[in-house]
């Protein structure tokens, strides 16, 4: 990057940022008038408030970032970005730019207050106009490659547990679906709202970041007796039965949230996001007998119960045998292998359907696996235990992969990732 770029970042007088500053003041005036509190400024960027009156809104500010223990939404737009700027201060500036935009997006507001001029493109791309916040959550994380890049001078801040994921048996990871310096997970109950959020964050950072890979996903939560039931994956099996409860602080502190002194100090109250793009071979699955399907998972398809049991949450007994003396649950079933590991993770899986695989004409569909854990090793242990033996391997191929350190939540007056740059 040239020195002009740095100058350009320091001077915040471009038309776009002018509009944002004046626009934010307009928002401030509006907020004051409606008695919701004022808009302050710190670090040279606008501090916006969560709008308590917004419909279907998740709070931006808090101890933890949103989109981790927040209720699962029906859609996700996951984006992995590479950073183009060349210094730590520019990187910091990027997160400062994004912070007020993220608040606005999560409030369901447009990114501009006043009507834009007609001779330039609008600041907000506009496709979410008329839609409410739709429970949009934005989760930001940074990948190992960001710390490896000497230009940012962050190598001493890299937590020792943050490394690219190892190669697992049968992995066929393609570079075009892997890695990235920064991730943005945008979840919402409306696909257009989720997409709009990423599109506008990336656009506001034009020339400073570039998209490495993206993936949309969807999931639907059925209701049983008015209670939320476990969602099903595209193989029709319930996915997430043994998930720890996001509502339990004890579980979350044990499984998900990095505790003080467990990692680098900037990671306290943060977590690690593991993402895997797992192609599911629907065609082969669909010609597999129900018995073989159930043996693959170790559970009954319809009820979700362990084989030989009746209900989804019945206790799993790997030693139980059927009338002929064979174990109900085969030792190489997905569940049996997964249960051997003591580690737990919080899963937020989504299905994806992205057209067809060019070479074969098969569905390009599967699972956008996203899990949160306080140490990526938890995921690695589980994945290694599944290893080559997992019966499910015959029907799936891991195509994409990423691991990102997700910052702790943002306090009002601070900005996304501030602790990474300030804490020592």
């Amino acid at each position, binding site marked *: 990057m040239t020195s002009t770029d740095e100058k350009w970042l320091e001077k915040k007088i471009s*038309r776009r940022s002018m509009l944002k500053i004046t626009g934010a003041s*307009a928002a401030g005036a509006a907020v004051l008038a409606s008695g919701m509190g004022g808009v302050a400024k710190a670090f040279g960027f606008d501090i916006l408030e969560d709008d308590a009156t917004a419909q279907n809104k998740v709070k931006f500010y808090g101890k933890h970032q949103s989109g981790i223990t927040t209720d699962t939404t029906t859609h996700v737009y996951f984006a992995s970005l590479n950073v*183009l700027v060349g210094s730590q201060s520019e990187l910091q500036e990027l997160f400062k730019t994004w912070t007020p935009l993220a608040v606005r997006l999560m409030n369901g507001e447009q990114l501009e207050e006043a009507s834009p*001029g007609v001779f330039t493109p609008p600041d907000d791309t506009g496709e979410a106009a008329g839609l409410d916040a739709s429970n949009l959550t934005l989760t930001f994380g940074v990948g190992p490659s960001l710390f490896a890049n000497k230009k940012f001078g962050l190598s001493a801040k890299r937590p020792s547990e943050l490394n690219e994921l190892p190669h697992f048996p049968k992995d066929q990871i393609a570079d075009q679906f892997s890695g990235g310096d920064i991730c943005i997970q945008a979840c919402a109950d409306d696909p257009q709202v989720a997409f709009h959020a990423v599109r506008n964050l990336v656009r506001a950072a034009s020339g400073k970041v570039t998209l490495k890979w993206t993936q949309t996903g969807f999931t639907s939560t059925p209701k049983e007796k008015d209670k939320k039931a476990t969602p099903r994956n595209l193989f029709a099996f319930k996915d997430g039965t043994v998930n720890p409860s996001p509502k339990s602080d004890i579980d979350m502190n044990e499984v998900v949230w990095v505790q003080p002194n467990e990692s680098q100090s900037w990671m306290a109250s943060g977590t690690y996001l593991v993402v895997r793009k797992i192609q599911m071979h629907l065609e082969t699955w669909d010609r597999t007998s129900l018995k073989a399907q159930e043996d693959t998972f170790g559970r009954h398809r319809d009820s979700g119960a362990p084989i030989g049991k009746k209900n989804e949450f019945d206790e799993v007994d790997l030693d139980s045998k059927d009338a002929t003396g064979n174990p109900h649950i085969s030792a190489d079933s997905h569940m049996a292998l997964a249960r051997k590991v003591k580690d737990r993770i919080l899963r937020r899986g989504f299905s994806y359907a992205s057209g067809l695989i060019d070479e074969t004409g098969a569905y390009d569909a599967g699972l956008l696996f996203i899990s949160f854990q306080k140490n990526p090793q938890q995921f690695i242990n589980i994945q290694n235990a599944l290893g080559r033996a997992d019966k499910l391997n015959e029907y799936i191929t891991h195509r994409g992969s990423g691991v990102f350190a997700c910052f702790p939540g943002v306090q009002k007056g601070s900005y996304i990732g501030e602790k990474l740059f300030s804490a020592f």
Partner: protein
Amino acid sequence: MKKMPFLLSTLLITAALAGCAEKETSSQPVEAAQEPIDLQEEVGAYKEFAIEQMNEFVLETEKFTEAVKSGDMEKAKELYPLARMYFERSEPIAESFGDLDPRIDARLADIQEAGQGEEDWSGYHKIEYGLWEESTTEGYAEVADQLLMDTKELRARVETVDVTPDLMMTGAVDLLNEVSTSKITGEEEIYSHTDLYDFQANIEGAEKIFRILEPEITAKDQTLTENLEAKFEALYALLDEHRIGENGFVSYEELTAEDTKQLSEAVNQLGEPLSQMGIIME
């Protein structure tokens, strides 16, 4: 998504927002509230540039068509991409002639899309087909004559174009869009694979518009000028990596997927700030 109510406060008395306030209270378009900026000189400068390019285009096309007619394959192939650059640089102007533009520059695919047949195809790309695909100039004398006539007509009619600031600014962005949609895929020069010449010329055409408007842009927002400078520079540097000889480029077929991705990203990164040039009108 809902919009925050617009409230006037002392903080908001800026020219830009005054215009917007006007829009809130009446249905008048934003620019109506403003003193229109005088860009007569800039418009004149751009027209002069376009005419200059067109003069060269006629001269180079003359040489090219002569080479075709005299059966000098080598010379024709050498002149083809260079002559076209004058056209590509001033495309926002040429495009205003809906009839002439296709006669000079249509690809066979464009003709077929319009529901016409190969017999309706004329111009540069038809001769390109002869030179690279059929390896002959034979039977192309008439096409060459027609091309030269069309080119001269284009040159004559450029005088009549009503160049406006809007045409310039939209044109600059259009030149980039042209690159992102057809040059970057190699669809423009499917026989000769000389797409990088067109690419370079389109960017130069966009840069010319920026240079003419630069004083106004700098007066309004110096950081935008600096940003544009940097992005043009970065894109030219990438193009330079694919140069060969004095003023040539490698065949588009030699580019890897990674090369085209890099070029495409650099074009998009230039496009965002370029689309902000309209601030001088506000």
